[in-house]
C-alpha cells in the first residue's frame, strides 16, 4: 500500500508556466509501480500551473500537491528539495521519481542525500519486483546496462524519452502544499535564452549531427538545413566542438550528451567509440560518410556512402517534398 511520489518539473515560456514533457513519462512509470504496490501516485508541482491536476490525472496521477508560496519559482534547489522531502515525510513513498533532466538530476541527487535514500540516476526502465524497485541503468555511456535492485525507498531519475507515456485517466485531487522556502543561498541573476530556438538534444525525437567530414565551419548550414527540414535538434562530434565550430552544448558522446532519439542522422562522423557511446541507443541510425569502412556503419541501420556536400542537400530536398 505504498505510494509513489513524482516531482513534476515546471518550465516557463512565453505562454507562462507549463509541465515539462517528461512529466507524463515519469507519471506513466510511477503508475506501473503504484499498481504493483497498491498505492497512489502523488505528484508534487512546485508552482501554480494551470490545470495541473487534469494534466497529470490523465497519466495516472491520483493526487497533486501544488506549492504556491513565494520563493519557489524560478526553480530553487533547496526550496524544491524541502518541498519534496516534506511531502515524502508525510506519505513515506516506496519510490521518489524524477525525470533525468538538468534539474531532475541535480534535485534528485540532493533529495536523496536529505532523505538518506538509495539513488539510481538516469535509468531507462524501472519495475517493482519482490518488494523492491529494480532498474536498468546505462553505464559507460551506454556501452553496458546494469540491472540494479535498489535498497528501500529509493530516489530514481528516469531518462527522458526512454519510455512512452501511457494514458490512464482519473480525477486527480488537487491539494495545496504548505511549505516555506528557506533563505536562498543560490540566486538566479539572469537567464540568457539562445539566439535561435533550439530543441534540447536529450529530449529530441530526431537529431542530425555533423562531424569533421563537413570540412569547415562554413559548410555547417547543410547540417542545419536538414535538421530544419526534419524538425530535428542538431548535434556535433567532439572533433568539431574542439575545433570551435560548434558550442560544447551540442557535443554528443561519452563526454558530451547521451542521446536516444527515434532517429539519429550522422553526417561526416567517423564513429569513434566515444561518439558511439553517446548515440548508439538511438532507435534508428542513418550514417552518411564517404569512407565505406567508417566504424559508424557498424551501428547504422541505413548507410549512405558518399560526400556530405552532395548527399545532404539531396536528402534535405527529398525530405521537404516527402513531409510536405
Amino acid at each position, binding site marked *: 500500500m505504498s505510494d509513489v511520489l513524482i516531482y513534476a518539473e515546471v*518550465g516557463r515560456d512565453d505562454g507562462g508556466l507549463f509541465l515539462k514533457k517528461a512529466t507524463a513519462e515519469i507519471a506513466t512509470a510511477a503508475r506501473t509501480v503504484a499498481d504493483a504496490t497498491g498505492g497512489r501516485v502523488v505528484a508534487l508541482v512546485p508552482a501554480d500551473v494551470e490545470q495541473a491536476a487534469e494534466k497529470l490525472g490523465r497519466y495516472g496521477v491520483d493526487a497533486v500537491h501544488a506549492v504556491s508560496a513565494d520563493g519557489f519559482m524560478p526553480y530553487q*534547489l533547496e526550496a524544491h*528539495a524541502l518541498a519534496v522531502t516534506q511531502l515524502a515525510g508525510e506519505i513515506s513513498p516506496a519510490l521518489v521519481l524524477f525525470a533525468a533532466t*538538468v534539474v531532475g*538530476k*541535480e*534535485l534528485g*541527487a*540532493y533529495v*536523496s*542525500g536529505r532523505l538518506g*535514500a*538509495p*539513488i*539510481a*540516476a*538516469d535509468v531507462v526502465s524501472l519495475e517493482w519486483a519482490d518488494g523492491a524497485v*529494480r532498474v536498468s541503468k546505462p553505464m559507460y*555511456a551506454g*556501452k*553496458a*546496462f*546494469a*540491472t*540494479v*535492485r*535498489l*535498497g528501500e525507498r529509493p530516489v530514481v531519475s528516469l531518462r527522458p524519452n526512454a519510455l512512452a507515456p501511457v494514458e490512464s485517466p482519473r480525477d486527480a485531487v488537487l491539494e495545496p502544499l504548505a511549505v516555506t522556502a528557506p533563505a536562498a*543561498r543560490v*540566486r538566479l*541573476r*539572469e*537567464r*540568457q*535564452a*539562445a539566439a535561435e*530556438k533550439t530543441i534540447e538534444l536529450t529530449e529530441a525525437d530526431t537529431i542530425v549531427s555533423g562531424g569533421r567530414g563537413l570540412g569547415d565551419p562554413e559548410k555547417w548550414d547543410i547540417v542545419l538545413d536538414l535538421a530544419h527540414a526534419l524538425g530535428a535538434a542538431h548535434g556535433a562530434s567532439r572533433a568539431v566542438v574542439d575545433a570551435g565550430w560548434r558550442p*560544447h552544448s551540442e557535443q554528443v558522446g*561519452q*563526454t*558530451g550528451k547521451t542521446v536516444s532519439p527515434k*532517429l539519429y542522422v550522422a553526417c561526416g562522423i567517423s564513429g569513434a*567509440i*566515444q561518439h558511439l*557511446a553517446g548515440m*548508439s541507443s538511438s532507435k*534508428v541510425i*542513418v*550514417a552518411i560518410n564517404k569512407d565505406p569502412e567508417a566504424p559508424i556503419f557498424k*551501428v547504422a*541501420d*541505413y*548507410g*549512405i*556512402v558518399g560526400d556530405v556536400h552532395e548527399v545532404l542537400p*539531396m536528402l534535405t530536398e*527529398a*525530405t521537404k517534398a*516527402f*513531409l510536405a
Partner: protein
Amino acid sequence: MEIIVLIKRVVATDTRVKIGADGTSIDTAGVQYIMAPYDEIAVEKAIQLKTEAGEGKVTVLTVGPNEATKELRTALAMGADEAVHLTVDGTLDAAATAGAIHAGLEGRSFDLILCGKQATDVDDAAVGPRLAALLDLPSVAFASALTIEDGKAVVSRENEGVTEVYEVDLPAVLTAQKGLAEPRYPSLKGIMKAKKKPLATDAATAPENGSTVEALNLPPARADVVTIEPTPEGMQQLLAALRNDKKVL
C-alpha cells in the same frame, strides 16, 4: 581560496567494454585507467581560481582502490597542493561514495568543493549534489563558467537551451561541465614536484544502502546496415523506409 576537488579513477573512454566472469562488472583485463574527464576540468578550474586569488590551497580527494594514487599524483602534477586517498576495495555506488566523502571531510575547512558533473563509468551525476545535501551546502550542478566575485561564486549553466547565471553563497558544491576550463597537461617539472607533495591515506568508511547490482549486460546487437545509394531515388527510398518500416518519420 581553499578548494577541495573530488576525482575518480575510471576506465579510459576508448575501452571496449566486456562483461566480467561475475556477470555484474566489466572484465578489467588490459583496461587502461584515467582520471574522469570532467574531474580533470574541475582540477584545472580549482588551480586557476587559486592562482587568481593569489593564495589558498587545492586539495584533491578520491575514494578508490590503492592504484588510484596514480590519478591523485596526476592532479598534484597539474598543480594541486595536497591529496587525500580514501581507500576502498571494490566499487561503491553514488550514495556510498558521497557518504564516504562526507565522512572523510570531517574536520576539514574549505570555501568550495568542485567535482566533475559525472564520472564517465557510472554516469550518475549524483555524488556532487548528494554530498552538498549531506553537508547542508548550496549547490549548482553542470557549471560551465565560474568566477568568484565579492566572496560569492557566480556560476553559469546550460539548461535546455537557456544559460542560467547564479550567484551562490560560499562554501558550496559545484559540478564541472565542459567549457569550465581546458585541463592542462602536467609539465615534467610538475611531475617531479608532485612526488614530494603530501598524500594522506586512510580507509574509507562507506554507509550501506541495500542496493545490489544483479547483472551487467551489453546492449543488444544492432542489425546489419542497409546500403542506400547517394541518389535522389535513394533518398526517397530511405525516407519511405524510415516512415513505413521503422515508423520514425
